[in-house]
């Protein structure tokens, strides 16, 4: 009844057969999901943000379920970049998955160090730079909340990594002026933007009468934040129509993914939805294909930013 839809997409010079990616921190390094679907069948595996050294992360409890959402405070537990590059990346490439490596740092220097190590790794599709981390050199102020620090992180990564590997700068929605931050990191060399990271939130445990999470505050994710994600993608796409966006935030169905694509996303990461449903990516990818076909789109590309059509005509 409907023609096959070309789902392929690009972020900078990286090509992906499908716009449905995992979200950083919501697929670990991929191995855990491989039991549920072939990793090569989705657009890309975005790995958990890795830092230069191994990290234990934050104390437990690390999560709280909230209405249609959850809070997490993992604190970037991970093996460190060396172990990650030695063990996890080769395995992912063996699976023929597209790999987007997410990096995180506590200093501008750390991001550059990470970029230097990535530079020599062949086979990865792109690097996602998670700048929603506290900057230890500036009173723990999150990089992504500071236009200047954001720019400097991306600038450092760009200079270190060279011109080839696409850089996706991942931004936080917890800012007054998201398009301004976006413009800054694009000027500094980001090829694409990832929107949105979690929203800062807190739950108080009514029994202990203290913050529930070991880390006190946590990041809100899941369907609860979807309207914020749609707004962020729409706003940034309106301001920077040429910059590809990896959209995310509460996507749990093909319709949700389609909403973000209409708002301006060229690809969509699925985070929290995988916790509730290990095969979420495959289901969402199939539903998205059906919706695009039903709406008469021959290619995904035609739908990207389609909700803006009034303004641009």
């Amino acid at each position: 009844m409907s023609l096959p839809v070309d789902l392929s997409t690009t972020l900078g010079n990286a090509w992906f057969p499908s716009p449905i990616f995992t979200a950083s921190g919501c697929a670990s390094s991929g191995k855990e999901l491989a039991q549920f679907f072939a990793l090569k069948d989705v657009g890309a595996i975005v790995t958990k943000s890795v830092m230069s050294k191994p990290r234990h992360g934050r104390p437990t409890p690390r999560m709280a379920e909230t209405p249609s959402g959850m809070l997490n405070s993992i604190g970037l537990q991970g093996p460190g970049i060396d172990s990650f590059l030695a063990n996890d990346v080769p395995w992912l490439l063996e699976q023929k998955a597209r790999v987007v490596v997410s990096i995180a740092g506590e200093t501008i220097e750390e991001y550059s160090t990470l970029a230097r190590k990535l530079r020599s790794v062949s086979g990865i599709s792109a690097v996602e730079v998670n700048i929603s981390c506290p900057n230890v050199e500036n009173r723990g102020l999150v990089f992504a909340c500071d236009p200047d620090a954001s720019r400097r992180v991306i600038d450092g990564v760009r200079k270190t990594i060279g011109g080839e590997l696409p850089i996706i700068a991942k931004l936080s929605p917890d800012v007054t002026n998201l398009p301004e931050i976006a413009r800054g990191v694009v000027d500094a060399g980001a090829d694409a933007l990832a929107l949105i990271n979690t929203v800062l939130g807190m739950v108080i445990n009514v029994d202990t009468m203290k913050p529930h999470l070991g880390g006190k505050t946590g990041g809100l994710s899941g369907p609860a934040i979807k309207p914020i994600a749609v707004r962020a993608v729409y706003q940034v796409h309106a301001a920077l129509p040429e910059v590809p966006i990896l959209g995310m935030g509460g996507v749990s169905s093909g319709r949700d993914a389609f909403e973000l694509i209409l708002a301006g996303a060229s690809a969509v990461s699925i985070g929290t939805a995988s916790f509730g449903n290990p095969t979420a990516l495959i289901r969402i990818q199939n539903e998205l294909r059906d919706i695009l076909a039903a709406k008469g789109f021959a290619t995904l590309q035609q739908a990207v930013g389609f909700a803006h059509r009034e303004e641009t005509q």
Partner: protein
Amino acid sequence: MATINKSATQINATILSNKRVGSYHQILINVGDVVKNCRPGNFVAISVGGDSSKMILRRAFAISRVSENSQYGGSMELIVAPHGSGSKWLCSLPEGSELDIVAPLGTAFGIPTEPINALLIGGGYGSAPLFGLADVLKARNCKVDMLLGASVGAKIYAPLEGKRSVNSLKIYTEDGSMGEKGRVTESLLEIVSNRGIDVIYSCGPMGMLRAITELVAATDVIHQCAVEESMACGIGICMTCVLPVENEDGQVAMLRSCIDGPVMDGSKVKWDLVGQIPEVQQ
């Protein structure tokens, strides 16, 4: 291909029966061939609240016992305490309801190849997986003693059939409303030495698991415990369920209790560090 979550699948299961037993609900679900891969200690993760639920995360429940030969094909029994909105929803479901489940998940209790003397200790609904375990141990000619504890009698789960598979069963309640007044740890060391216990298998509140570990630390007894940490995903992708555990190098790692547990070696868990962060060693 997969090394983690091997043999886990996501299926729709039908509720075959749902009975109140004391403070709990004994829920029998039809899961087909999945039972073939279930081992005592494994758990199941269940979607709760239906299609328009605000609860987005699965709930974890120990697989109490499985049967391959039920009239419906493979079936699995769960013992559910109505705790918050998700477990209460589950307990309220009528026979015939469909459940979206992922199973089996997590590590299983280690089964000895030799006949040993085993002591099974359950706290509250923690006894659930122990009866299935007892069956397996008996089949290997082990001697199986069991201690169950709870705050009140209604929270002791000890079905008749289950009792048959153990050599002895001793019950403790904190209010004395059933069995002896007190806790399962009361005369633990005595029991261990009197009965020549080789392995303790335990499941229950973290405080109980810690207490057992500390009591048997000076003995040769192996302590396999099934831990219970708050889990967002149950399949190893979220890192919320971690516990500080000593690894082979003697260093402490934050292990995921969903894939490196729930069954862990009690002596390796750094109970005093739970809820804290160990120093990073390099």
